[in-house]
């Protein structure tokens, strides 16, 4: 550690020490769960147990097959695949229109969209349940996917509008003078340099969709068709005692988001931070 100004030794150590304590506070609960997941199933456990009985990976197999997390993960993936591309596309088109064209009443429409940021899921979920049931859309992929796309739209439009607003206006005007339609301008001129913004939005949408709990819990009443986190919630009620199995199931459910996060961590963190600050 090189610092330009000479400091007392104690101060130089304060920062790493504080950060180490915080990191440990984050890690210990995760580690505790990881250790529980490799213990033999059905034995009494204490909190931070070292694997003295060998490493029992069969908990993961049981969670996947017998407890049915395989199909639950699949339905989570289907929902995410339906939601992410559609939501990103809608948000991109709206953000592009709001940032580069003179949409009649554009300001008002934008304000109308931003209102959605203050609507908690608890409000929409009650009517959604009864309305979607009337349409026969409860327990279906489109029903849940549409509810999520709608809930994610305000942030997405806000994010893409802010992104397109930072691009030089001359770029759009030059394309227009060359006779490019708004459509070609978007795809040929603006999109190639918009990859980071779009990726960030996609990563955020994936994580939100994967982690969504209340919507699938209510809108999908059939336990076999639920998403992985909703299934996990259902599972806690059933297998309360078998800690290793529950721990293994939890790790299976969080693995995909953690992998996506670690892979795109810079996108994710910057997205959350700058998204929050611009708002």
């Amino acid at each position: 550690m090189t610092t330009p100004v000479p400091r007392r030794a104690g101060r130089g150590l304060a920062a790493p020490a504080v950060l180490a304590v915080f990191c440990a506070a984050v890690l210990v609960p995760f580690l505790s769960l990881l250790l529980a997941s490799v213990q033999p199933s059905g034995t009494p456990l204490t909190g931070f147990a070292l694997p003295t009985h060998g490493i029992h990976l069969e908990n993961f197999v049981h969670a996947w097959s017998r407890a049915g997390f395989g199909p639950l993960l699949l339905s989570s993936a289907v929902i995410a695949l339906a939601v992410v591309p559609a939501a990103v596309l809608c948000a991109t088109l709206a953000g592009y229109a709001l940032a580069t064209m003179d949409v009649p009443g554009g300001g008002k429409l934008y304000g109308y969209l931003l209102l959605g940021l203050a609507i908690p899921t608890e409000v929409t979920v009650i009517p959604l349940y009864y309305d979607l049931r009337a349409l026969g859309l409860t327990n279906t992929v489109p029903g849940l996917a549409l509810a999520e796309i709608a809930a994610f739209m305000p942030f997405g439009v806000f994010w893409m509008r802010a992104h397109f607003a930072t691009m030089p206006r001359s770029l759009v005007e030059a394309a227009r003078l060359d006779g490019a339609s708004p459509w070609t301008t978007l795809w040929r001129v603006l999109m190639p340099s918009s990859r980071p913004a779009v990726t960030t939005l996609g990563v955020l949408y994936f994580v939100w969709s994967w982690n969504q709990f209340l919507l699938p819990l209510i809108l999908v009443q059939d336990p076999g068709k639920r998403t992985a986190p909703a299934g996990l919630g259902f599972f806690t009620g059933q297998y309360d005692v078998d800690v290793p199995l529950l721990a293994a199931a939890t790790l299976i459910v969080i693995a995909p988001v953690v992998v996506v996060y670690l892979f795109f961590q810079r996108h994710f963190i910057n997205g959350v931070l700058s998204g929050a600050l611009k708002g």
Partner: protein
Amino acid sequence: MLPALLPYTLFAVLPALHAAYLSLYAWDGVTLPSFTGLANYRQVFADPQLRAAAWHAGALIVFFSVLPIGLGLVAAAVVARRSGRRGITVVRTLLFLPQVVPLVAVAIIWRWVYAEDGTLNQALRAVGLGRFADSWLGSFTWSLPAVGLIGTWVVAGLCMVLFLSGTQRIDQEIYEAARMDGAGPLREFWSVTVPLLRPEIAVALSITVIAALSSFDLIYITTGGGPGNSTVVPGILIYRLAFGGGQVGLASALAVVLTAVISVAVLVVNRLARETP
């Protein structure tokens, strides 16, 4: 514009309006609803269970907002004085992790920490404080703070990373100048770090207050509102009333009030942030 507006209007705005409409009716979800005007709203403000939920939501703000923001500021202040920032990416990635994992999983992780034979009691016994061991989530006294601290754990990293990136904006020379003027670490914290991080603090405040007021997942999995009603929050009540209690109208009224409270809270925070110090 249309592809964005259509699903948003149909599946977010209309349901919200529909909720406002339902809130004026007494409806069990099955038979015909009957119009009752503002009776549901009167009940929201009179019912002792609903008042308890409001109190708990208020208490959660302490754990979800005040505590993590305090911790985040202290961490940011300690690290800001140091210019070499090697290893900060790894730390950032780690601190953000609770933010990424589904709250259901967070709740399960912490159920294990707080369990009778869980990590916390084991640690207490290991250092000879075994007599303080408790079944934390099943205790009338401790369940609310226990749940609240899970919230602190989830958002503290977000606040910290937010403030750390904020301090990068602060010129190191300001710190040098403060030090020249003989400011100690405490003085420096209150007169340099905190005022200059004002925008970040406002953002952290609005995110965490929304999280506290609309909390559902965490509490649903850890305590379900219990024991008794000791951790009941608005989200849990809305769920119980609408999908178990057959009081859809009352649940909608509560949901509408919750939305109003959240909107006002966010507006107030933003207003405070815009005022020049």
